[in-house]
């Protein structure tokens, strides 16, 4: 494996309380290779989103990354960046598609202005050049350049989500973090968007950190999957293997509690 794009070592994140701390992430280590689609799975509160936010240092107090934790992106220590370095790092190195990102567009700006906003913040660019770049990026996600003059409310949910993804790719990031990116969309649109992402990462070479609670979807789209339980990464393996041959008892129980679309139905009295 070539040098990883993301390398997380002994990551510990606590939510600091007045009496006791809540250990949200406990000693987590994993790598994501260039071009890899890595899925992070687990139930609410297991710490998967906390990790996603920590990678671009978007975590907020009371979340505290403990000393000894290491997050390397392209070999650079993210936790050691100063403010200006961090500003340049975000979006250029790691871009993030948030949960219900289709609502993260500014409702009073046109699509074009939202692209311009990003491009201008990260480098000198003329309006014309920004417009051309925006049109090119929209084409990547299969949206006509006519849409540059649209406001978010004039676009469908799926289209808004694709606009957000296009904006995220504006500075050719090495890593795209997607936290439940398609949860609010219907399955037909969801498939379309994820297939598009898959195609783009093969063409452009970026890696993906994908977070979802939909384990079936995760197996379908990821190269490798990490399973989290109460802040710990309990199993990491190839997507297919972790589904067909789970090693950790919790992983086994997760699959056993998922109703099946065909074949013999699961039988289970108690939850994992």
């Amino acid at each position, binding site marked *: 494996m070539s040098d990883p794009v993301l390398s997380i070592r002994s990551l510990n994140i606590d939510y600091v309380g007045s009496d006791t701390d809540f250990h949200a992430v406990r000693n987590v280590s994993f790598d994501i290779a260039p071009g890899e689609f890595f899925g992070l799975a687990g*139930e609410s509160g297991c710490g998967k989103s906390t990790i996603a936010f920590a990678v671009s240092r978007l975590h907020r107090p009371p979340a505290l990354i403990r000393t000894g934790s290491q997050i390397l992106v392209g070999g650079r220590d993210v936790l050691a960046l100063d403010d200006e370095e961090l500003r340049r790092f975000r979006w250029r190195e790691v871009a993030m598609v948030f949960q219900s990102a289709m609502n993260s567009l500014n409702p009073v700006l046109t699509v074009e202005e939202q692209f311009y906003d990003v491009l201008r913040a990260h480098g000198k660019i003329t309006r014309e050049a920004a417009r051309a770049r925006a049109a090119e990026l929209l084409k990547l996600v299969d949206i006509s350049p006519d849409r540059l003059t649209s406001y978010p409310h004039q676009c469908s949910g799926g289209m808004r989500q694709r606009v957000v993804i296009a904006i995220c790719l504006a500075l050719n990031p090495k890593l795209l973090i997607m936290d439940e990116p398609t949860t609010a969309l219907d*399955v037909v649109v969801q498939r379309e968007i994820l297939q598009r992402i898959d195609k783009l990462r093969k063409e452009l070479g970026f890696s993906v950190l994908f977070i979802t*609670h939909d384990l*079936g979807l995760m197996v379908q789209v990821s190269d490798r999957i990490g399973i989290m339980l109460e802040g710990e990464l309990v199993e990491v393996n190839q997507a297919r293997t972790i589904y067909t041959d789970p090693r950790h008892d919790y992983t086994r129980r997760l699959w056993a509690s*998922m*109703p*099946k*679309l065909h074949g013999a139905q699961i039988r289970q009295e108690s939850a*994992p």
Partner: protein
Amino acid sequence: MIQASPILALDNVSKVFGHADRPVYAARSVSFALHPGRTLALVGESGSGKTTAARLIMREYQPDAGQLLFRGTPLGKGDAKALKAYRASVQMVFQDPFSSLNPVHTVRYHLERPLRLHQPRLDGAGRTAAIEELLARVKLDPALVMAKYPHELSGGQRQRISIARALAVNPQVIVADEPTSMLDVSVRLGILNLLNDMKAELGLALLYITHDIATARYVAEDIMVMYAGQIVEWGAMESVLGDPRHPYTRLLLSAVPDPDRPFAETPPDSELSRIETIRRQSALPQPEIQQVAENHFIRPIP
């Protein structure tokens, strides 16, 4: 759809929004029936009309055409007494257990209110006994949860309280609109098992509304697929899932996440456009229903 006499039936019900010159059919000639001890799943994408169907049943909307039949009798408008009796028979469980319970009231209050309204002869001790029984039925410990407020409970526990509240009036029909979509995988199964138990033990008729077809297969014997306000395919679960005949059902099933196979390719635009025809031609007469198997029907694309 099935023989025997249904508890509740929708007979060619339509609900139209928007202007007369550009009508939007939220429900168009929707017909189905709910039977005791059976679960009917209603699946479709957001905006397909699933929740409109639920609201029509809950009498939040009046149909623009067609009628609801309760035990074979058409439901009229505005008869308050009949409506109250209907409400006691048809209950709803909502999607979001975080907003469907009142944050300033205890579990006891939530369950006591329907009892006071619908069983006025019950005294305080009787109500307490009834609440304990309801909580036991949804597998919660009365001693632990009775005095708790919603924020002290987990999502799964809250959804169990919603179900107990629905059961408090001894209903015959329960409409569950995405009852597990906000819950984790492990918790979800517990709620689905509870719905299955209620159906079996209390002989309830269930309408299970979801976009998650795998859970629909887990709880329901029959399924309806809705698109653009119309039910495009319906029948026995295994028949519809195993041999989908309507292009939209095929599209939907091919896109549903399934760890047992890779993603199927999105069909060509021509196919998607053909399906869109249903939405575009919503004002034109509908094609005839076709029977494709013993208990399996489609309404073809015009």
